């Protein structure tokens, strides 16, 4: 049996690899210029200040150069992409109103109706617009706002103006500028003072148009003493031409609040996933990023936490799986800008079948601080001799009353462990899977149950045919 196992997951069997005829109602032409940006803004019926913001961002995007580090992005052709498409004319209020073909797509990626009762609100994204959105009544009663950013711009302009683009300015980097110019869809979350949201908020994203980029924009504001767990998951159908996904996620954790943001990214293997995610943690606030990267062709993503208030704490847990043809350039950043702050970055990666897993991260401690603690740990497993693993942890320490530690290890599956498990009657394949699961276990444990199950299933799928 072993010898018959395919080297990688067969595309024909890849259950997410399906797509339906494009039924977008409104779509801009290929390429990007002022006309396209104006068209997007017009289609969204936006106020002038947002249109101006988009145009400023566009100019920044055109001026900024591509990063000269990280994954190879040379085959992205910005002129050959669509920057906006809207699948349905208006926001649907109930699941029944969602068009059948979109529902079917969601069905296939595993959002069965039965699961919806677990979800506080579903911001389900098809192409670049939110088509389905529901908020449980009790959340609405508590004053929690969970909507798409377009609605937020219309209905909560003051809050949006106050925070939008403040954590990640449009000038931050080329892809943040791109997103700022053409953003569409995403989530807007506001949790009022003292409110603890006890079920995770979730949004599912999906790309479904050839050569079509998706640029969602998420802004989460946790007011003083509040708590929220936001979960983002995405899968995409397989296409032959490259797709570009370039999101911006901004989190503001006000004093005493806690925000956890979980992503399992499983874009199809032709997607460029170039994402900027950053959080501000104010006094006594905690921000946690749990970031799983399984899919995409090339991912560059380093969830960041700026600890700007005393007592703030930040954690990044990063998991990457780089299979055939994939490059996962991921990691995390912690920037300490206040005393009495702490951070932990834990990264685990697996590379196989020629995949490249790169940890890239930054730990920075600003000048004149004291009682700052930080720990960065990277573990990498290379499953075969064609695969690669890189580690680039940057540490910039500008204060003396600081303790920082960093460790990184790269290894293969230990022969002894394999031998032991095989002597207990396991096949080499089963034994390898068990070791890989054990390797990832500390991180998988941090996930909500349904995500842990999904991740385990994905790893199992990825591990098929590893041995023999």
């Amino acid at each position, binding site marked *: 049996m072993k010898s018959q196992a395919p080297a990688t997951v067969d595309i024909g069997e890849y259950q997410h690899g399906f797509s339906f005829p494009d039924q977008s109602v409104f779509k801009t032409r290929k390429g990007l210029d002022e006309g396209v940006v104006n068209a997007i803004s017009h289609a969204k019926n936006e106020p002038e200040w947002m249109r101006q913001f988009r145009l400023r961002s566009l100019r920044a995007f055109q001026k900024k150069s591509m990063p000269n580090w990280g994954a190879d992005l040379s085959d992205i052709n910005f002129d050959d992409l669509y920057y906006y498409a809207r699948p349905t004319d208006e926001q649907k209020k109930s699941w029944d109103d969602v068009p059948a073909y979109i529902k079917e797509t969601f069905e296939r990626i595993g959002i069965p109706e039965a699961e919806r009762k677990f979800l506080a609100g579903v911001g389900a994204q098809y192409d670049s617009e939110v088509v389905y959105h529901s908020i449980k009544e009790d959340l609405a009663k508590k004053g929690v706002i969970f909507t798409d950013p377009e609605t937020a711009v219309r209905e909560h302009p003051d809050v949006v103006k106050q925070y939008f683009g403040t954590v990640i300015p449009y000038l931050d980097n080329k892809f943040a500028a791109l997103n700022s110019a053409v953003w569409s869809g995403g989530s807007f979350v506001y949790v009022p003072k003292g409110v603890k949201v006890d079920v995770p908020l979730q949004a599912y994203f999906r790309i479904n148009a050839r050569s079509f980029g998706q640029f969602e924009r998420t802004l989460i504001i946790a007011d003083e003493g509040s708590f929220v767990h936001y979960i983002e998951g995405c899968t995409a159908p397989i296409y032959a031409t490259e797709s570009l996904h370039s999101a911006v996620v901004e989190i503001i954790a006000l004093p005493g609040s806690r925000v956890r943001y979980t992503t399992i990214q499983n874009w199809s293997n032709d997607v460029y996933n170039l994402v900027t995610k950053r959080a501000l943690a104010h006094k006594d606030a905690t921000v946690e990023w749990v970031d799983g990267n399984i899919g995409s062709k090339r991912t560059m993503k380093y969830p960041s936490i700026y600890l700007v208030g005393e007592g703030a704490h930040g954690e990044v847990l990063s998991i990457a799986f780089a299979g055939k043809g994939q490059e996962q350039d991921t990691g995390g950043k912690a920037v300490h800008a206040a005393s009495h702050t702490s951070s932990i970055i834990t990264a685990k990666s697996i590379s196989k079948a020629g995949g490249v897993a790169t940890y890239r991260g930054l730990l920075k401690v600003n000048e004149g601080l004291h009682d700052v603690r930080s720990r960065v740990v990277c573990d990498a497993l*290379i499953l075969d001799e064609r695969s690669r693993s890189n580690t680039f942890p940057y540490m*910039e*320490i500008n204060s003396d009353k600081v*303790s920082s530690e*960093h460790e990184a290890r790269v290894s293969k599956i230990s022969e002894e462990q394999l031998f032991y498990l095989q002597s207990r009657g396991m096949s080499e394949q089963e034994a390898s899977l068990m070791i890989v699961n054990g390797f990832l276990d500390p991180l998988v444990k941090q996930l909500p149950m349904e995500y842990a199950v999904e991740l385990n299933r994905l790893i199992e799928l990825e591990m098929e045919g590893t041995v023999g």
Partner: protein
Amino acid sequence: MAERHEPVWMRDLRAKAKERFEAMSWPMTSDEEWRRTDVSGINPLSFAPRSASAAPAGAPTSRVGERNGAAGVLRFESGRLVDSSVSEEWKSRGVRLLSLDEALEEFEKPLSDILDEALDAADDRFGVWHYAAWSHGAFLSVPRGLEIKEPFIMDFSESGDGALSMPHVVVSLGEGARAAVIQRFRGSGDRILCNAGLDLLLSDAAGLDYFEAQDLGSQSLFFRSARARGGRDSSLKHFDAAFGGRLVKTRIETGLAGRGAEAYLDGVYFCREGQHMDLRTVQRHHSPQATSRAYYKGAVASGGRTVYQGLIEVDEGASGTDAYLTNRNLILEAARSDSIPTLKIGNNDVRCSHGSTTGRLNEEEMFYLESRGLARADAREMLVVGYFEDLLARAPELYREGALDRIRSRMALAA
């Protein structure tokens, strides 16, 4: 250069380097390796090469009595060879310690091979410039099978305001040969630019212990690019100590080119007010079953700035690689210390890891020492010396004492 009467191959090599030099621009902070060291504010070409008349007319006579137990001594003062001596015994057995320009004819084959390869590998303008315009230097050759315990000493004393100095050292060890070298850079308060180069070639089973100490004047700019290549079962120990200079940017790259090769890169650095030090180590594994370690430890006093960049790179064919890299930084007062230990691994049969810590003096230990009656400054000095002790214990006494003296004097200044 024409007045040097160098052999044709050397002139060709310089011309080739010069051509590349002309086509390159100085490193910019957009180049990853130079991101933290900005040289845009200095004009390297404003430093004046020393005139040929200051260059040596010929080797001075041996002064055997001044070797102090060393196997050989070479001393340069501002580019001029002032002392050259090798033990007669080793000389008779084929050991050569020469100023580099003297060696060019006799050792054309090994030198042209080594320097050609080094020039090809040079990837920034300082490195290429060095091969176009090296000014003086040393060559040590130890024939196969010879084991020499006493160190060879190479001293480079660099002064002269506004002077440009480009010393180069080549060490070539035959199969199974063993040797130790102590290379020291010293300087005055003059503002000089020293762009040094070092090429080490270890044949199969050769062993080299190389101790480098840099204590140039406080206004000096020091760039140094070092390359080492080790054959099968060779063993290299390179120990670096960085104390002087206003701006220091150094790199050592060791290529483990033969099965079973070993390389140990150790380093200590002490950086204080007005100093910027950017040190890089590269452990490059080309062959199976090779071992490498890098262990760099620094202390940064108030106003100092250090950068350590380490890389372990493992080629696809280098199975059984065992590599580790450690960087520790002690921040004494408000100072900045960056640590960038990186891994690029292309083989799965490896044990590679790195560790980095940055912290300050342990307050409890300080309290203990002060409660025993030590003045605060003495307690600090004791802890800092203790911090470096494990590394310095690996160095020969002569070198260790020199390094400790410098650490103590800097602690006294920092206090």
